């Protein structure tokens, strides 16, 4: 069965999106971490063509990226509207759960690889 969140919290201060899952697990995602893993077709293609590398002069950036808002997609996913206007990524709950950056989940992923 699909993983289901109980609450999804956009934590402005902490620059984090925090999910409390129905099974009690907690995931805290930094905004940049989520944006770097946007599952939309454009981002996946761009990523495949030329992996992003930090440039020397980030002077044209408009401050750190953050979600303006997030909406549920039916019962199975989350759509994030980023402050730069990007919003085509639909993050399924399963995908988010697989991305969980907590130490326990990291370790479990390392084991599989």
């Amino acid at each position, binding site marked *: *069965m*699909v993983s*289901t*969140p*109980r*609450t*999804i*919290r*956009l*934590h*402005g*201060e902490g620059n984090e999106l925090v999910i409390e899952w129905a099974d009690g697990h907690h995931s805290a995602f930094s905004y940049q971490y989520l944006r770097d893993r946007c599952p939309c077709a454009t981002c996946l293609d761009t990523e495949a063509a030329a992996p992003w590398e930090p440039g020397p002069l980030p002077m044209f950036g408009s401050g750190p990226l953050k979600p303006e*808002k*997030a*909406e*549920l*997609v*039916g*019962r*199975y*996913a*989350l759509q994030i509207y980023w402050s730069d206007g990007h919003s085509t990524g639909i993050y399924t*709950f399963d995908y988010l759960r697989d991305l969980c950056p907590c130490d326990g989940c990291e370790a479990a992923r390392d084991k599989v690889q």
Partner: protein
Amino acid sequence: MSKRVSPQQVLEALKGVEDAAQQKDIVSLGYVKDVEVASDRTVIVIEMKAAAPPKANSQLAAAIRKAVEAIGAPKVEVEIATPSAAPPKTQSNLIPRVKATVAVASGKGGVGKSTVAANLAVALYRQGAKVGLMDTDVYGPSVPSLMGGKQEPHVVEGKLEPPVEWGIKIISMGYFLPQDEAVIWRGPMLHKTIQQFLGDVNWGDLDYLVMDLPPGTGDIQLSLSQTIPLTGAVIVSTPQDLALDVAWKAIAMFRKLNIPILGIVENMSYYVCPHCGVREEIFGHGGAREAADRLGIPFLGEIPLDPKIRIQSDAGRPIALDLNSPLAEAYQAVAKALSDQVSRAGEEVPQIITE
């Protein structure tokens, strides 16, 4: 020509009818909601306090009819409404006052989805629920013919007012197209239509919004599943392996989209020969029940293959309206099983909190 009977006389006659479960007459129990006596017919509306099995209801209806006909009232019609289990609340901004949304789906076409959807809507209504019926089959809308009526939607204060047939609010692409026109659209247009059917129609307060889906796992299914958090899906299948194999695809889709499967209905389950009474299992029998068991999905019931269903459907009067018909009882049983599942499918929709 019999002498005109007054509503008071009817009420007096009803005092002689007992509710078997309560052992008290139905007037002092407060069941009688409305009595109407016209020159050619008498309508008695009964509202039960608790849900009763369809059999008990039809026995009560028969007893009422007998008592009221005895005093010479013309053509007695009895309507019995029973409260159904309260469904959980759907959280959607588009339809904030709709408590439960139920998609009626199948893998394969031609298994009787629309007929099942229309009759389920009627059966839920007869159990006392407020029901809407949304025909999402944009290409082949059949709900307007199934439900009969000549009304059309009209716009009131920027919202579409849906026609009401047999007590049920209905919207369908069929209302917007001449008979000989076809909808020839790609996905984005379908998506927009689904959103409009949800958000631009004045559904009002509903206990159930039943949605008749087209066959398959395509644009419309996906749009619907993304636009609102559906309470659940009912899968309709005929008993043969071919249909069940494809039904599995629909189930897989809903599982992927995290939409609870409320159960499977086996349609065209068997045929009773009107001449000799022999039960013929044309497509095999029990396949859906076995599949449900195997997949761990509730089995909601079986509906026989009966020409009466086809005749009533073509005439725009769903069979579930008929009191005392075993076919209507079959639909009542499925509706009861469905409302039980809906009240249990109360898995909360995740909450988004912005700080």
